[in-house]
């Protein structure tokens, strides 16, 4: 809209050419993670319905209300669907308040997208950068104004982060990671940033200069960071200069702060205590934000505002929102905090509370639905009970079923009559090649459990937030290993590791001396190393190349040997698991993967050394990883066999490993190594002979 820009020029004080440019925003429709699988297997995350309105609508509405005139939307997977949807939405109509530019990209991270953006030269001035899953009603005006005045004075102030104050325990706050901002309150500058884990020793490594330079700093852990940033074009340039930055916080923010001495770039914060802001990062946040919306915390973005032109929600008592044409049997009850979409019918005697139900759903008689999310066109048979679960579009739940809290039932899955789905199950029909699993969906049902691997990690329990989290205290306190793995923003591994409780001890001892900075570096290294190895393995690069790359990486990030070992172990296991999953037998997989890469393993287990510590560690990593793979025990057995055959690990090494307390510290660990027992026995028995033979050779 030209007029606004014009007006800005008229009203503005002298010398502000950049103000004539329209305000732009960049939206990352894809958050580059898979926290919403199995739903995201078929639909893009930004189109998942939140209180029956697609997520992207909230984000665009937020931007429009901030006066944004141009939106650049980055799509990752399912770009077609996003385009298709937006084409039919009000945002691409001629009368839309903002110009929407959809960019298809194969970016794998925010960093990639930013670099791409820099190349495309689409950004002309300062812009707002958000994820496609932000729900917010905070006023951007003050923040934009503060940002601009700061920019006028100081060209080095390249970014302003919008943060919302929230107490210690807010339901939309992530429970896994607590971002800690160290802020200079006077300059509103962020001087240090770290992510802490709950129950971790709260320790920050604040650089000395920070404390010298700033007379006053606030260490704040009570802020909700929902990824709304006001960026300058300089930010893009920085991303381009530092091609390894992936995540906006862990990569960019951290990097810029670290390089402050050299670049003198500053990042500022705008801390607001009014309005609502949250990101629907995972299912737990999905649940929390939905409840916020229904309780009108996001006002005016509530269902009865009818964001979509064809919606007709009305608010009834007790925060019940119903569209026109909902059919309720007289004896049915719809209790507080529920949403019912158009043409949904509820049978006699059914009770619905705290639930969101889409359009055209058919709910049978005497059904109990409590805290569930049921998307459009689902059918639910008589006498069924659904707890806090998600039932996606067109799913069919038979009669007398019981869907327990935390279950996720994806598109078009069909549950036969009388099926019980335990919490945490993820049922899907993707990939379609797999046939229905009657054990899960009952006779005549359709669907199967989602194939899980680390990449598709998601916390089923996270939907059932709160209690389960705390029950699993051991998991949360289990720690240092997981710190190596994760950054919520970009990493795929995190939750899983911690969920398996008890495993931690063994690794704590390995890594316990690392903290803060070192940890993060280690995590970076680990992440990069594993990705590069796995890529190489997939491509079938030869061992020399891999080794070379690994060496380079190791030197550049100053990693220790044991980190390399860990990276190698993890990536090999991952590759093996992938092969096994695709149908190759564990034995073949091992043969295919290990043998060509003998060299790498050899390097990192340091064969020939008297100390078997390296080998033990390597095996521990392997075992640990195997523990959460399907057929992990088998794989481990074959790996061990192969290692023994090729003399990569000496029998003494195996023995030391077997006896090491860390390898038997938990049930799962014991279970996974059980299969390997015979091999070890043989090896240990043969030990002496072997040695003799070795000597004689």
């Amino acid at each position: 809209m030209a007029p606004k820009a014009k007006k800005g020029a008229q009203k503005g004080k002298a010398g502000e050419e950049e103000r004539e440019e329209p305000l732009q925003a960049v939206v990352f429709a894809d958050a580059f993670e898979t926290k919403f699988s199995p739903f995201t297997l078929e639909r893009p995350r930004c189109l998942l319905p939140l209180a029956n309105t697609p997520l992207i609508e909230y984000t665009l509405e937020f931007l429009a209300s901030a006066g944004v005139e141009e939106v650049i939307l980055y799509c990752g997977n399912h770009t077609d669907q996003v385009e298709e949807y937006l084409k039919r939405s009000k945002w691409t109509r001629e009368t839309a308040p903002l110009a929407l530019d959809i960019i298809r990209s194969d970016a794998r991270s925010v960093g990639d997208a930013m670099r791409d953006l820099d190349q495309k030269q689409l950004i002309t001035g300062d812009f707002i950068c958000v994820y496609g899953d932000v729900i917010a009603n905070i006023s951007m005006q003050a923040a934009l104004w503060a940002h601009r005045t700061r920019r006028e004075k100081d060209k080095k102030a390249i970014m302003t982060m919008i943060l919302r104050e929230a107490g210690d325990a807010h339901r939309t706050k992530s429970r896994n990671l607590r971002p800690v901002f160290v802020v200079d309150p006077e300059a509103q500058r962020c001087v240090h940033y770290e992510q802490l884990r709950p129950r971790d020793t709260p320790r920050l490594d604040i650089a000395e200069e920070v404390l010298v330079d700033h007379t006053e700093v606030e260490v704040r852990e009570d802020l909700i960071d929902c990824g709304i940033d006001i960026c300058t074009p300089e930010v893009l340039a920085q991303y381009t200069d530092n091609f390894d930055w992936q995540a906006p916080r862990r990569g960019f923010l951290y990097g810029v702060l670290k390089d402050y001495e050299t670049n003198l770039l500053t990042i500022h914060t705008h801390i607001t205590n009014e309005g609502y802001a949250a990101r629907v990062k995972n299912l737990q946040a999905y649940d929390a934000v939905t409840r916020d919306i229904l309780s009108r915390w996001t006002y005016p973005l509530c269902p009865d505002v009818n964001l979509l032109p064809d919606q007709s929600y009305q608010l009834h008592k007790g925060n019940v929102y119903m569209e026109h044409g909902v059919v309720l049997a007289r004896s049915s009850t719809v209790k507080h905090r529920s949403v019912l979409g158009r043409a949904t019918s509820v049978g006699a005697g059914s009770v619905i509370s705290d639930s969101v139900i889409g359009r055209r759903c058919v709910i049978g008689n005497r059904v109990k639905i409590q805290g569930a999310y049921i998307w459009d066109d689902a059918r639910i048979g008589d006498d069924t009970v659904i707890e806090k679960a998600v039932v996606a579009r067109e799913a069919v739940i038979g009669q007398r079923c019981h869907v327990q809290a935390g279950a996720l039932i994806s598109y078009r899955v069909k549950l036969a009559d009388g099926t019980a789905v335990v919490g945490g199950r993820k049922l899907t029909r993707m990939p379609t090649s797999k046939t229905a699993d009657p054990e899960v969906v009952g006779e005549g049902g359709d669907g199967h459990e989602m194939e899980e691997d680390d990449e598709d990690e998601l916390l089923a329990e996270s939907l059932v937030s709160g209690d389960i989290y705390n029950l699993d205290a051991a998991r949360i306190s289990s720690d240092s290993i997981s710190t190596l793995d994760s950054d919520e923003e970009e990493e795929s591994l995190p939750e899983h590791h911690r969920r398996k409780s008890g495993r931690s001890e063994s690794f704590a001892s390995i890594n316990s001396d690392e903290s803060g900075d070192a940890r993060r570096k280690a995590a970076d290294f680990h992440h990069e190393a594993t990705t590069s190895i796995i890529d190489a393995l997939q491509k079938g690069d030869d061992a020399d190349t891999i080794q070379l790359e690994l060496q380079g990486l190791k030197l550049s990030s100053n990693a220790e040997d044991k980190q390399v070992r860990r990276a190698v172990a993890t990536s090999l296991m991952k590759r093996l698991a992938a092969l096994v999953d695709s149908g190759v037998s564990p034995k073949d997989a091992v043969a295919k993967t290990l043998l060509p890469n003998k060299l790498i393993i050899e390097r990192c287990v340091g064969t020939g050394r008297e100390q078997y510590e390296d080998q033990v560690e390597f095996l521990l990593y392997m075992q640990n990883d195997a523990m959460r793979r399907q057929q992990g025990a088998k794989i481990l057995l074959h790996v061990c066999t192969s290692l023994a055959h090729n003399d990569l690990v000496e029998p003494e090494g195996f023995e030391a490993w077997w006896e090491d307390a860390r390898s038997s510290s938990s049930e799962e660990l014991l279970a996974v190594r059980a299969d390997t027992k015979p091999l070890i026995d043989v090896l240990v028995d043969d030990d002496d002979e072997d040695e003799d033979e070795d000597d004689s050779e």
Partner: protein
Amino acid sequence: MPAAIVGETPSLSTFLKSLKSTDVESSIDLFISLLKRRQIKNSRPCALATAQLLLRVVAATRIRDVQQLIDRISEVGRRLVAAQPREMAVGNIVRRILGVVREVAEEDERDGSLGSGRVSGAASPDPSEARRPFLTKTFSGMSPLGQSVTVPHDFHPRVKTPMIEYTSPPGFDASAEREVKRPVLPSSASYAGLPPVSSLLSLLEDPLARSPIPTPPPGSSPRIQPMGKITESKEKIDVKAEVIDGIKELLDELEVVDNQIAENALDHIHSNEIILTHTSSQTVQKFLMTAARKRKFTVVHAEAYPNNHDETHATIVNGGKKGTGDEEEVDERWKPLTSMGITVILIPDTAVFALMSRINKVILAPHSVLANGSLLAAAGASTIALAAKSHRVPVVVLSGVYKLSPIYPFDTHELIEYGDPGKVVSYEEGEFMDKVDVINPLYDWVDADCVDLYITNLGGCAPSFLYRIVADHYRTEDIDLGGKGSS
């Protein structure tokens, strides 16, 4: 003031500015989304924006016949009302403008029939009469427009000068007088004054009254078509210009409404009275200011926490909120009441009952007024009204006619909008809000029997008389705009 930024948060002023340069459809959509996002809210901004927008709509529509224009306006109106049914001012303005169009059309028609020269005198009140059988009403509905030129002369005084007529005597007399006068004449006009034939005919024709051409004069049915054609050629210039004039008059009315209401101030506020008021309202502020020029009194101001307290504080300290209305409000010098030597006491809403025994008069500003005399006002108003009732303190409501809605409150719960609970419970109280559902109603519904007097820009009147003003201002055929979410 952080206004001159590109990413300026859209508001009434940005909307009005953009209105000039963007095309009509975009403006409509923009207004709808602003309404939905509550970036334009409260009666006055909504009314202003709606009138301005419809002005654009009318100006941009190519009119071939009047019915098209009516259809177009009602279609736009329906969308606007559906976007935010609780902002009744939007619907009110749409109905008023529809009324203007119909008025112009009828007048035009009458001119045509005048040309035919036969029945004009007797028949002219007829079409509208037929159209509004329940209300036995006349053209006076369009009072602010002053366009009912061809209305028989005896209708005029009441039509054009209600202000003059009713402002001088104190409110009660005015309404009483009005009430006495009103029913007599129109009914005599409709039942006694008209030839029986024409009224019968028009009765029969009633269902057809919505046809493009206003109800024809009796006995001329074969001639309808040619006549319509003839008048159309005139209409092209005429109707549009007339309607635009009508809308402009409506905008003028919106502008002067506060002054007109304030003219009554001295009749109601006497020296040394203690007046209780609630939230910030330009109308009330102006009313009190006008009285303060002549008299000394005390104002007790309830702050309307948590939704409006900021504005209330600003009103008391600076005389008005800043920043929102940089359009025409700027030239009005807003001074705080205290600068005129008035004692203002700020109290929390909870203290209202305790203080009520000392209050002489309660002055409220509504969000909207309903046809039965009940009203919606900022949350807290109900408490005040009930407290006043139990202490027998008169409650005076200041409301422009544009806030007066023909809607009848069948379900008062539905009329109330619920806001952000974050204003009541802090967002930081994570655990608390996890377990407790907090509701924050933005408005209260106050029943008609809690109100003693309404002061509109037409003068004072009793709540029970409001239906009359409604009938004067809105056509029955417009009351239901179609997809109305009210009933």
